[in-house]
């Protein structure tokens, strides 16, 4: 049987994740005897899978180099660099290349079981099929013409809210498209590792060179996020009609505008 040290070392080497001893011990004591008799590599795989499905705040140990600066969101800092590697988890994802309203329309099309193919309206629920799942939003993805339940075409770029193992949150922005970052593919709680990333005005600039996507999700966050997505979009649209600007992510952005206004 593999020791917790072996597993930790393996995960650290391959994924740059420093798994906490406490968490690993709990993992090992709660895994059943069949699992404990697995070869070390298989057990490590299981452990990694659990880590990716966990909350990093509970499963990782922290060191000064593996967490974000606590003032990372400070918009007065024009540019700084994070050496890392810093493991983070995704708490929110938004497509900022597409208007909120067209995202709502897309979700409603999916709710009606339709998809648009050019000018053609396509029905995505197979007819005459007594599939009970047809009205809960599942069981539709078997049709290749059907968009995913998020109803987005996924143009991007995407804006994420990320959180490190110490609980510090900030905004990250997908400057160059990263495979796997899309409303369809990325789950809430998915894990990323940042290396040598640039932070500008409090936003982490993501590109394939500095962000490695490990996948995973936190079920307890992902499910309500997906369920309430349309509601959230509608709420944001109605506040937009009043406020007239998107300032939801960084509430303390006013200083940010002030510093930049000198440019224009």
């Amino acid at each position, binding site marked *: 049987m593999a020791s917790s040290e072996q597993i930790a070392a393996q995960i650290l080497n391959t994924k740059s994740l420093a798994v906490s001893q406490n968490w690993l011990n709990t993992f090992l004591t709660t895994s059943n005897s069949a699992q404990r008799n697995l070869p070390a590599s298989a057990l490590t795989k299981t452990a990694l899978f659990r880590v990716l499905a966990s909350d990093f705040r509970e499963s990782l140990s922290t060191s000064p180099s593996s967490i974000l600066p606590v003032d990372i969101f400070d918009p007065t800092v024009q540019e700084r660099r994070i050496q890392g590697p810093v493991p983070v988890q995704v708490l929110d994802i938004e497509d900022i290349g597409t208007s909120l309203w067209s995202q709502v329309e897309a979700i409603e099309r999916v709710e009606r079981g339709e998809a648009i193919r050019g000018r053609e309206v396509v029905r995505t629920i197979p007819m005459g099929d007594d599939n009970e799942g047809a009205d809960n939003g599942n069981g539709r993805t078997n049709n290749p013409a059907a968009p995913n339940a998020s109803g987005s075409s996924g143009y991007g770029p995407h804006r994420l809210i990320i959180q490190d193992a110490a609980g510090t949150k900030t905004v990250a922005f997908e400057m160059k498209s990263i495979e796997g970052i899309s409303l369809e593919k990325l789950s809430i709680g998915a894990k990323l590792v940042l290396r040598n990333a640039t932070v500008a005005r409090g936003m982490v600039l993501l590109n394939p060179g500095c962000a490695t996507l490990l996948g995973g999700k936190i079920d307890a966050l992902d499910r309500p996020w997906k369920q309430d997505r349309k509601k959230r979009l509608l709420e944001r*649209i109605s506040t*937009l009609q009043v406020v007239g600007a998107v300032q939801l*992510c960084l509430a303390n952005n006013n200083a940010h505008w002030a510093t930049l206004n000198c440019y224009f």
Partner: protein
Amino acid sequence: MARKILCVAEKPAIARAVATHMSGGSFQTHAIRGNQYVKNYEFEFNFGAPWGNCSVTMTSVIGHLTGLDFERQYKGWLSCPPGSLFEAPVKEEVDKDKLPIAENIRNQARYSKALFIWTDCDREGEHIGSEVRNQAKTSNSRIEVRRARFSNTERAHVLQAAREPVELDEFQANAVAARIELDLRIGAAFTRLQTLQLQAVSEILKEKVISYGSCQFPTLGFVVDRYLRVQNFKPETFWGIKLMLQREGKKVNFLWKRVHLFDRAAVIMMLERCLLAKKAKVTKVNQKPKSKWRPLPLTTVDLQMMGSRFLRLDSQTIMKVAETLYTKGFISYPRTETDQFDKAIDLKKLVEKQYPDNRWGQYARELIDGKFRTPRSGSHNDKAHPPIHPVSWVNPSQLNENEKKVYEFVTRRFLACCSDDAKGKGTEIEILYGEEMFHANGLIVLEKNYLEVYVYDKWESSQQLPNFEKDEMFEPTEANISEGKTTAPGYLTEPELIGLMDANGIGTDATMAEHIAKIKEREYVVVNKRGSGRSKIEELIPTRLGIALVEGYDNVVAGLPNSISLSKPFLRKEMELRMLEICAGSKTRQEVVQQSLDMYREVFIHTQRRIAMLKTACRKYLVEQA
């Protein structure tokens, strides 16, 4: 005595045109009793083997001879529960006003050796042909039946069609018969149900027939869907980066590759990073030949869409005018899905016929003198008709205003098809500024080619770009944030609606215009005119009743698994696909009628059970919001 052959066309004008060509212009005209439009034309014609020289009577019907209706005891609105109309016995009878025409055919058939069907070569024509045959057979059961295959009334084409007849296509005739029965049963059942139920809801509906048609409702559905999208629309602000460079006395505006984003903070951050970089680098300088493709050969749907866009005529008017031009022998049959010319057609000869025209005659001459190009081929071929094209030249003074417009469009389109693509030179500059990419495009039109005759397309040179070298660095003159708002889509226009109907299998190219006219006539939609002159737009807006019906039917099936609202195109599309199966011979008429009735019967039962939903929707829009 020479053998006698009876020829029957779909309309009097076609009978006359065909008779003129076959007889070489000398024929005797006889009126028939009881109908002032249909005439019998008598002449001699040599059909070649095996018929040889025959005496011919050329006559016509006026569209369908027979109609399908329920037996008498089911005709009254309150005679039976509407649902029983799905099974109630029906019978086919000669329409009352067509009785003299049917009698004429029976009389003429009695002494004829053969019957040649000259109805239009499409599904509907095949069915009309079968009706004519049935009449002829009642008086002469031994009469031989043939079908002339033709797609225009140009002389040589007509003579060839007369000498090379084919068989009537029973499959197509059966498909039409199935469609007629389905339209009758489904239409009558739903129309009676909703009319009887809804009349009580509002004073406005008291005397009104609220008709249902399986094409009408999805057509209405498209209009309502767009209307609601416009109504519900919420504008949102977006931001972009505007970049301008002044060089060689020209202002070059570069476009941001990201176009715009819906996050102000991110855009400002990006602009700041551009400014920090100070200089932009030219990453690509591309000069390449560009061309604008000449149009594809003209189909009916395209004629209707382009026609309502460029000629400002509604689709039904366009089809009527095109029909007239066809009947008079100026253009080919205007109902076709084919967008490729058969190799056998002598296109150059058709181009030459346009020489006398003082608008495009010179252009036609240039084509023949060396500029002629074989038209592009689209991917559609209905195997019945060529694309719509002019078959002979007509002096504009012989045409009325609308005929002139449509003939001009068809001809210019045809000449454009036979021309070369427009050619030009495109320049594309791409730059990297900070981490952001921008580009500027330039175009110089070198040869207009087809554009000279096809005045409906626009392709113009842009402002010329100054010189750029790859890898050169420059400092942009201005870099700014731009701000804009998303705007609601426009209300549906007729060309858009035709496009939607075509893509979703609602109606055929022959009937789409009628369905649109029908929902206007029923006051489910109204036409709203906006703007003037060239920017005039005609928008389709649903009435309160129109919205109420769509919302009502959507609510009827809401939450029911696998039930489809009648406002959606899916059920009708299914039915249309089954018609094609009859045409292909893979399904029988009876099978298709039964399957399609089952499909609609299910929705009918839901509607009956949840009729309150329909009433509530009508009350909401017609009483509460009135």
